[in-house]
């Protein structure tokens, strides 16, 4: 009888390991290696070139003493919370409307979702045009006789972030709606029947039964929106380029400008590290809820 030798552990599933090399390399080199590299360099006073010239927390101190950064954070918080609230609410309401066994459901869904296929650059530019006070909405309303009407969000530092929000919501709510619709469709039809037998009006069923049942869907949507918000860059660049003044600055743009424009890499690294931290603040509790509960060992 032939003795089958136990193969070396390393070589077991060798092909699979080779196939997974790109993934392993990406995970280790890019996602971990690059991140660590940037964090380490955020403690240096690197200017144009990265140098290991440590200055402790000086970059962070400056960061939090810089008005532009504070404006960016403020904008991000405002934009983030507003777009979370609005896109979840609007997305859910639209999904509910489409869930009413209506005619032309596909047409409506197609219309509401199409902006999601467009790039932020396109979105930013078209809304820049619509919100242009000389030609756009303001002009139209004025020509209707309301000559004092003012609607120039992109030129008014106080409300510019609303201008960006309008464009961002236009682009993104369709996506949230689709997720919500999938969630609604995933709900057992018999629940609806039961609530009709119980004589519960459908709005109450949505609030007290369906929404609680869709908690995982809401959380997923929330995490997706939140992760997207932190990365907001293209939209601002195309729509306002941070202006007027610094009124619509966002952290991603601050990082880019610090790294490449102000030639202050250390500062850019510090800012991006703070961005990472803010993502982790959202991500870790979510991951804990999502995975931690089920598998105790992770």
């Amino acid at each position, binding site marked *: 009888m032939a003795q089958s030798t136990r193969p070396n552990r390393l070589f077991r599933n060798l092909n699979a390991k080779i196939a997974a090399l790109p993934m392993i390399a990406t995970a280790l080199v890019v996602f971990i290696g690059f991140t660590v590299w940037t964090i380490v360099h955020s403690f240096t006073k690197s200017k144009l070139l990265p140098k290991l010239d440590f200055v402790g927390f000086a970059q962070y101190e400056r960061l939090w003493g810089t008005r532009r950064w504070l404006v960016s954070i403020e904008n991000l918080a405002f934009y983030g919370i507003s777009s979370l609230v609005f896109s979840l609410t609007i997305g859910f309401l639209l999904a509910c409307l489409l869930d009413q066994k209506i005619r032309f459901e596909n047409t409506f869904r197609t219309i509401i979702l199409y902006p999601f296929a467009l790039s932020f650059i396109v979105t930013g530019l078209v809304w820049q045009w619509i919100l242009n006070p000389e030609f756009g909405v303001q002009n139209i309303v004025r020509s209707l006789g309301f000559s004092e009407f003012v609607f120039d969000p992109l030129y008014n530092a106080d409300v510019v972030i609303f201008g960006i929000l309008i464009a961002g919501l236009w682009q993104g709510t369709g996506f949230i709606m689709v997720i919500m619709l999938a969630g609604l469709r995933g709900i057992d039809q*018999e629940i609806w*029947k*039961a*609530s009709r*037998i*119980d004589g519960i009006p459908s709005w*109450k069923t949505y609030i*007290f039964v369906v929404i609680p049942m869709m908690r995982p869907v809401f959380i997923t949507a929330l995490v997706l929106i939140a992760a997207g918000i932190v990365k907001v860059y293209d939209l601002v660049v195309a729509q306002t380029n941070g202006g007027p003044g610094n009124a619509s600055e966002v952290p991603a743009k601050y990082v880019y400008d610090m790294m490449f424009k102000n030639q202050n890499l250390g500062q850019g690294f510090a800012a991006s590290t703070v961005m990472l931290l803010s993502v982790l603040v959202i991500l870790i509790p979510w991951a804990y809820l999502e995975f931690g509960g089920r598998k105790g060992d992770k």
Partner: protein
Amino acid sequence: MTSVSIKNLDLNFGSVKVLKQLNLEIDHGEFLVLLGASGCGKSTLLNCIAGLLEVSDGQIHINDKNVTWEEPSDRGIGMVFQSYALYPQMTVKGNLSFGLKNARVPKDEIESRVARAAEILQIEPLLHRKPAALSGGQRQRVAIGRALVRDVDVFLFDEPLSNLDAKLRADLRVEIKRLHQKLHNTMIYVTHDQVEAMTLADRIAIMKEGLIQQLDSPAEIYNRPVNKYVADFIGSPSMNFLDGDMSTKGKFKTGGTEIDLGNYEFVDGPIGAPVWFGFRPEHVIVGEAATSQPFSTKVVAEIVEPMGSDTLVWTSIENQPFRVRVDGQASIKTGDEFLLGFDPARASIFDKENELRV
């Protein structure tokens, strides 16, 4: 006195006719089972009664009130679903009281109804748990409780036991029967399981392709199926059918075998046409006792399937398969030749042309 009455009911999904001119009268306190293979329209009919589906034509009366256009909640019905359909984020108590609260039933009234339902169903200890923390059987009890607290006369069950395993199903079946005996409500129960139907029903309506094939007591359906479909559907193992004709009056002839129909109760008297001769496997007698039967013949056991309490023997008469259910202790082995016999009075004969009982 009718509790639920369905008149000339039509239901179409687009061009597909799901229910066709259906009439049904259900008495107060009756336990009616709608039985049929999947897609026969039985659940659809139940949903129409509940008002969850709009009918295309016809009427539905509940407690002598025309409820055709009423909302489900106004029809005086309670319903129990296959998937339980409990509200997952509410406690058992919340599930039981949600509908009542919504109907603005006074608080103490809700309390007492919930307490009563919980007592009847023995779910008091579970009142503060959420559905996720309950077993399947417990969930279904809660679902029944939700129908119970509505204090209605008509209960609708949509395959309530199908998601449970065999043992629980048997337990809960008895429970439902006990409940019916206690409450004396009208119950309409949809199932594809003939055991449930036979054990629970006062009357069974067997449905096929949107039509009721037979509406009768379980015994009648078992003993005197109106057509070949019903005969084949009811009974396990199902009925044997021999292909032959009755060209000689009072005699069934298949191949070289002739069976004298003797005391068979014809519906309209014997006909001279090709027929199916149906006979239930469990009504066959084997061995020496067979000789005392009006008909007997010698056959060979081809396959023997022992099932403990009894044994199913596959044999054939005139090259047509014929199953025989014998006692579990019987010693017939594959290849054995043995004698079988039966009383043709217990047979069911169907006209081959329209498959109706003759």
